[in-house]
């Protein structure tokens, strides 16, 4: 049996509910707005929050890009793209600058986002305070009271234990001087891109049933101490083995045969675009 799905998979009631939550999320930057989080044909924890946001946004004229850890072609990205295109018939692209909606897991693309684009981030753990406070009721209170000492203490303990802030990804950030937000597991390298972004950034957590937002031109400051500043991952003297790019987020690769370490752009479409430009020029 072939089911004729509604445009963008959802029924209109589900979209309306997400849309109402999204508008409130934009009005309160960084605050996690609860939403119903429908059952999706992919498992919770695999990007259902981002997917639901994308489906509530998407229209016939949109051009979609989906990335997973910087790659347009990994299983998660491909499956999400398939679901969206099969239920909407819209165009997909790999090129960041061409897309109107970019759904992403764990990265913000290297090419700066522009006004008119919407970045949708998939979030596994939207609660930055969950690490030390398991109760949702309690974390809601902590947010209400702007009581973030736990988040600071977590960073302080990391510095004490390891001599550095060891947040590999998902380094908490203060939004509009009010809410501490989990920026989704993007590397620290991408945190500064959230600050004064030209594009609207929406974050969706399907399993945890939360949406939140960073409107354009909003102050997003990664948590750090006066005497211990926030630092992004450094790739000093390292470059992409394929396209030669520097000052981008690199993946470390190991050559099994020679045992040598080499690096490659994490953002595959950025790398490919550079390679194409090189071969064209």
């Amino acid at each position: 049996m072939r089911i004729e799905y509604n445009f963008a998979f959802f029924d209109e009631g589900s979209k309306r509910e997400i849309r109402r939550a999204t508008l409130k999320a934009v009005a309160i930057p960084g605050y996690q707005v609860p939403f119903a989080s429908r059952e999706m044909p992919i498992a919770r924890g695999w990007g259902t929050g981002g997917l639901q946001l994308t489906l509530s946004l998407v229209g016939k004229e949109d051009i979609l890009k989906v990335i997973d850890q910087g790659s347009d072609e990994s299983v998660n990205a491909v499956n999400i793209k398939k679901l969206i295109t099969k239920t909407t018939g819209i165009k997909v692209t790999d090129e960041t600058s061409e897309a109107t909606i970019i759904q992403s897991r764990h990265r913000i693309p290297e090419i700066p986002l522009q006004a008119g684009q919407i970045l949708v981030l998939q979030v596994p753990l939207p609660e930055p305070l969950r690490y030390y406070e398991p109760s949702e009721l309690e974390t809601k209170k902590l947010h209400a009271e702007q009581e973030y000492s736990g988040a600071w203490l977590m960073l302080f303990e990391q510095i004490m234990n390891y001599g550095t802030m060891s947040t590999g990804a998902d380094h908490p950030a203060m939004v509009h001087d009010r809410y501490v937000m989990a920026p989704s597991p993007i590397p620290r390298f991408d945190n500064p891109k959230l600050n004064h972004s030209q594009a609207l950034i929406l974050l969706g957590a399907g399993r945890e049933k939360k949406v939140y937002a960073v409107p354009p031109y909003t102050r997003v400051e990664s948590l750090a101490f006066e005497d211990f500043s926030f630092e992004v991952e450094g790739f000093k003297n390292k470059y992409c083995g394929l396209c030669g790019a520097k000052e981008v987020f690199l993946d470390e690769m190991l050559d099994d045969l020679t045992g040598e370490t080499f690096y490659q752009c994490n953002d595959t479409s950025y790398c490919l675009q550079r390679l194409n430009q090189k071969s064209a020029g």
Partner: protein
Amino acid sequence: MKLDLVHDLQEAYRKTLDSMSRPGLISNIRDQASKVAMEINDFIPPAALVMVLMLFDTEVKFKVCSKREAEIAELINQLTYAKATEIESADFILVLKDADPEEFEQVINSACPGDLHDPHKAATIIVEADSVSNDRDLTLIGPGIEIESYISVKTNYSWVDLRAEKNSEYPLGIDLIFTDRDTNILCLPRTTQIVQEVAG
């Protein structure tokens, strides 16, 4: 042509979202509003009606401020299944042009601003203005605005000070959506601050 409840409302939503995330940006929903040419236009202006159809359903409680409140509330209930309620408990409040200035003041003062645990439960107020434009009447700053943006909102009632007072304890506050007869939409989320008012 009839309003397409899937695609037209999607387009209207994206425009509203754009305006909500960039306060001062005026979007126009003429294409969508022109399609709601039903007899109910006499009651609810088309731009506001598109907002109602876009956001209201059985989960929503609303309040209408107008001389013809009863008729309009009944109509909205029939169209969307949303429930009419009092100002204090409404998720959305629709203030039409023929509402009394005192009533508007009461709306702003009594509308739910959310609470610290649930600031998202605050009311959204949809106001029918005479006109909205980017004339340099009010200066806006805040999230979504690069440096400053300028707006002019013509209404029968003054709202700037009332809103400022209501929204003085961020994250509590109300979010405003202005519509006008040219089907423009202008959004003022609670984060937007009106820093200066130029007289005249």
